[in-house]
């Protein structure tokens, strides 16, 4: 079973539209991370959330972690073609493991 579930699995949006990606765990998370992967390349760190209710923003990307530390959302405002890629949430679920979600493939149409 997957410890971290992401939704949606894929997303196609028109340039300029807002979008949200969700990451859900059945366990309390010790840290939640968002990474972006361009097709065929390595992972790029976006941001880390540790405290319940925490919210961070970088440029047009905002990530939130719920109070229970079991769910996070990544919101992109006014999407651009440069936002295209695979978004992955990663987390420490308390057993020294750094596991990842299933990924969300984002395509932005110009």
């Amino acid at each position, binding site marked *: 079973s997957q410890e971290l579930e992401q939704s949606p699995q894929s997303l196609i949006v028109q340039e300029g539209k807002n979008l949200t990606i969700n990451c859900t765990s059945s366990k309390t998370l010790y840290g939640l991370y968002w*990474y972006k992967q361009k097709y065929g*390349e390595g992972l790029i760190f976006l941001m*880390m959330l540790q405290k319940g209710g925490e919210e961070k923003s970088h440029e047009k990307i905002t990530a939130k972690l719920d109070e229970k530390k079991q769910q996070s959302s990544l919101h992109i405002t006014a999407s651009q073609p440069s936002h295209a890629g695979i978004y992955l949430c990663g987390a420490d679920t308390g057993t020294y493991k750094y*596991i990842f979600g299933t990924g969300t*493939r984002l395509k932005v149409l110009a």
Partner: protein
Amino acid sequence: NAGVTQTPKFRILKIGQSMTLQCTQDMNHNYMYWYRQDPGMGLKLIYYSVGAGITDKGEVPNGYNVSRSTTEDFPLRLELAAPSQTSVYFCASSYSRGDTEAFFGQGTRLTVV
């Protein structure tokens, strides 16, 4: 700093062959990880290490072995390669457990034919 370096970048193996994927980091990180990423999928944890001499299984360890004799190196060994092991393999490291970001290598694309 070079960060996390993986070699080789690409490899084609025949069924039944063995190989070692190399991973080295120069950040003095205690934690190191091996993941595989199948096409269109997320990352699955194969093995991880919390320090030299200490390794443990992740989500999908069958068919793989690891060792951690030094802080810097964390090689992944494939014995008797099978087509199901065709994937992109990523090595990562972090300073500590889940309160710091992980740094990733560029990946090794492995095809077993």
